[in-house]
């Protein structure tokens, strides 16, 4: 057999792909999405706390937020997932039994929170100080002013960055296989890898790669679209200088239509 043909069959063996496809669709894809989306939500909640702590006037909130961010942004994702997933496993065993998912999601969330915290902080700080002053002048407490006026505006501005983080999570979720998954818990990468290991043919892994691209490429374009609209306003609204002059249905655009 000529080498080119061998190479082609290593990656594009349709039979291997067809064999792996059902399990990718029914097991791998849902699991990848569960890992990424749950970690995105939990990471966002943690990230908001980190952001608020990061701009707090108290050093005792600012400092831990700083350290947290440095640690989880500075460690390789694989190291964090192993450290949390293996290190906390005895603890996890007592709480929810021998299921690596919660710790995997926790580790992914911690990683995401470090990035998202910085993203949220820059978003909050990009909202003009006069907005806070106006809210306070009406009688809102600092908390309420942040919650009702500042954070909603900041979040709009960081949606493109948030979607980028979701893309990173979709990719990093492949590392959770380190923690040892049951057959029904395997995500896209692990399923592809298993098929590839059993057959010695990489086609199933390539199929897994195509699934990742099917998720991440549209999201990348969604980011560009959001970014463009944030800068130029809605097409029918005409040009505007004000980035807030928008009525975006972004959660749908960012994640909803991928499923």
């Amino acid at each position, binding site marked *: 057999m000529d080498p080119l043909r061998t190479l082609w069959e290593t990656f594009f063996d349709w039979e291997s792909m067809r064999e792996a496809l059902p399990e990718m669709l029914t097991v791998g894809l849902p699991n990848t999405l569960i890992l990424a989306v749950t970690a995105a939500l939990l990471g966002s909640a943690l990230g908001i706390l980190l952001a608020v702590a990061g701009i707090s006037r108290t050093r005792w909130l600012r400092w831990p937020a700083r350290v947290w961010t440095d640690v989880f942004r500075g460690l390789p994702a694989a190291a964090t997932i192993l450290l949390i997933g293996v290190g906390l496993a005895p603890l996890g065993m007592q709480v929810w039994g021998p299921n690596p998912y919660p710790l995997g999601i926790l580790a992914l969330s911690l990683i995401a929170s470090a990035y998202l915290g910085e993203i949220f902080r820059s978003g909050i700080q990009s909202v003009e100080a006069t907005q806070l002053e*106006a809210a306070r002048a009406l009688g*809102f407490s600092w908390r309420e002013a942040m919650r009702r006026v500042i954070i909603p*505006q900041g979040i709009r501005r960081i949606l493109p960055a948030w979607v980028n983080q979701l893309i990173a999570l979709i990719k990093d979720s492949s590392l959770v296989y380190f923690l040892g998954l049951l057959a029904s818990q395997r995500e896209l990468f692990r399923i592809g890898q298993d098929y590839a290991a059993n057959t010695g043919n990489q086609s199933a892994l390539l199929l897994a790669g195509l699934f990742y691209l099917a998720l991440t490429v549209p999201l990348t374009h969604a980011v560009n679209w959001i970014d463009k609209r944030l800068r130029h306003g809605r097409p029918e609204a005409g040009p505007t200088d004000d980035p807030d002059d928008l009525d975006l249905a972004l959660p749908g655009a960012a994640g909803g239509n991928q499923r």
Partner: protein
Amino acid sequence: MNTSVSLSLRDVHLAFGRHRVLRGVDLDVARGGTACVIGPSGSGKSTLLRTVNRLLEPDRGDVLLDGRSVLRDDPDALRQRIGMVFQQFNLFPHMSVLRNITLPLRRIRRLGEDEAVARARAELDRVGLAAKADARPAHLSGGQQQRVAIARALAMQPQVMLFDEATSALDPELVKGVLALMAELSAQGMTMVVVTHEMGFARQVADTVAFMDAGVVLEAGDPQSLFESPQHPRLRRFLSQVL
């Protein structure tokens, strides 16, 4: 409007670091009266205004609302009784005009949705912008935005209104409408402190005009005497430059 109160500032001092912005300011506004504060940029006018609702805390001195020190009140509760209008309008850009007004009514005054909407629509009607209820602030002209900001403050039924150069950021043709609205409020008996560069407005609407320079009130009195026969040389120079 019969909720008006009297307001007096007593020897108010405030420094930002080593920069002494207010150096012992006294100002009295009668119940239902309108005081205009004029003076060159950087004289401390806007800073003074912010000590009334405690967006800034004075280092020394006192602010009395109907004889009672505002420094003894909870700042949030105090601000709910004092309306403030800013140079840059400061509407919340991510919500409609109507919701800009109903948000504080719902969350601070704890009104039900229907009542908040009814009151907001009434205030919008009063400032002539009932038709813009569902628009975003960015789709309004500066003058319209400022009138919405005034409606938002009025909907809280404040006892005192503070205006911080409310027309300085407006295109000239839009100034008139906002000033007319402020004059109307004044005529209705709202107690007002107005920091302004509009000498015509100060002359016609104010009961008291105070001239500030370098953190002190150099001269104060009724507009007639202050504009017709200014005593302080700095005031005379200032008036010759702006009139």
